[in-house]
């Protein structure tokens, strides 16, 4: 299996501790949750954290140890966790779902479809994952209020995507395969 960081610049990938864990049968919410926490524990260990427990906050978001910002995502069969020591916020998303044309129009604004889908060659699934990852890195930040991930605006910025909402921006790094899109947003 190609590395999930393929396509992410080595200098960026080197700052991440990334771990995956398979979701066991019957692939339900409980199994996905547990697989996500196991991936998070592994990512925290790789990052050098003595604390490897990630409790659930009110609202369902994972609470990583101080100084070890992290994020968890999963498909029905695979959980992913990313930890970036010293970052102020991290968002990751792993996506294998089909994104229909109607869903694409719902989530992506016209300029995003024109420049990122048609010109830059990202898939709708890539950009869906990018907005989800950016949402996790931006939401909860002072000043943003409550919003939905599709309200984030994406643009191309060198080798990365740049996500913007409420006056804040965050770079989003993509790793894309035929069957899977992985996005990681890191705020410093």
């Amino acid at each position: 299996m190609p590395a999930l960081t393929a396509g992410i610049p080595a200098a960026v990938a080197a700052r991440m501790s990334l771990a995956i864990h398979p979701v066991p049968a019957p692939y339900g919410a409980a199994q996905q949750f547990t697989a996500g926490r196991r991936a998070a524990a592994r990512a925290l260990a790789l990052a050098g954290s003595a604390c490897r427990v990630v409790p659930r906050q009110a609202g369902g978001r994972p609470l990583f140890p101080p100084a070890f910002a992290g994020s968890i995502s999963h498909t029905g069969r695979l959980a992913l966790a990313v930890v970036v020591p010293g970052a102020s916020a991290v968002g990751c998303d792993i996506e294998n779902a089909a994104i229909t044309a109607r869903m694409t129009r719902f989530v992506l604004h016209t300029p995003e479809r024109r420049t990122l889908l048609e010109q830059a060659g990202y898939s709708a699934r890539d950009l869906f994952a990018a907005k989800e990852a950016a949402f996790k890195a931006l939401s909860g930040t002072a000043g943003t209020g409550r919003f939905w991930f599709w309200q984030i605006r994406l643009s191309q910025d060198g080798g990365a995507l740049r996500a913007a909402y409420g006056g804040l921006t965050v770079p989003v790094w993509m790793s894309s395969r035929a069957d899977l899109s992985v996005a990681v947003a890191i705020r410093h």
Partner: protein
Amino acid sequence: MPDTATDVRRRIRELLAEVFGGWGFVSTVDASASLREAGVPSTALVALLVAMEDAFGFEWDDDVRPEVLRSIDSLAGHIETLRA
């Protein structure tokens, strides 16, 4: 097109069952519970919102308040408001 508040909630449950988890999942979701916290992934939520546009004959505003999309009850409330 569903007419009563009960019909609207039932139709939203049918649409959710079509896009995520089937009735085995949907029957366990309380009408007031957060769909995201209940385990509905973002892809399924978007698929549900798109399906609602077709089923109820409207389009979501880009700046819809987040709390409107939180639960079956809040989604149904939005439909009822549009029809009032």
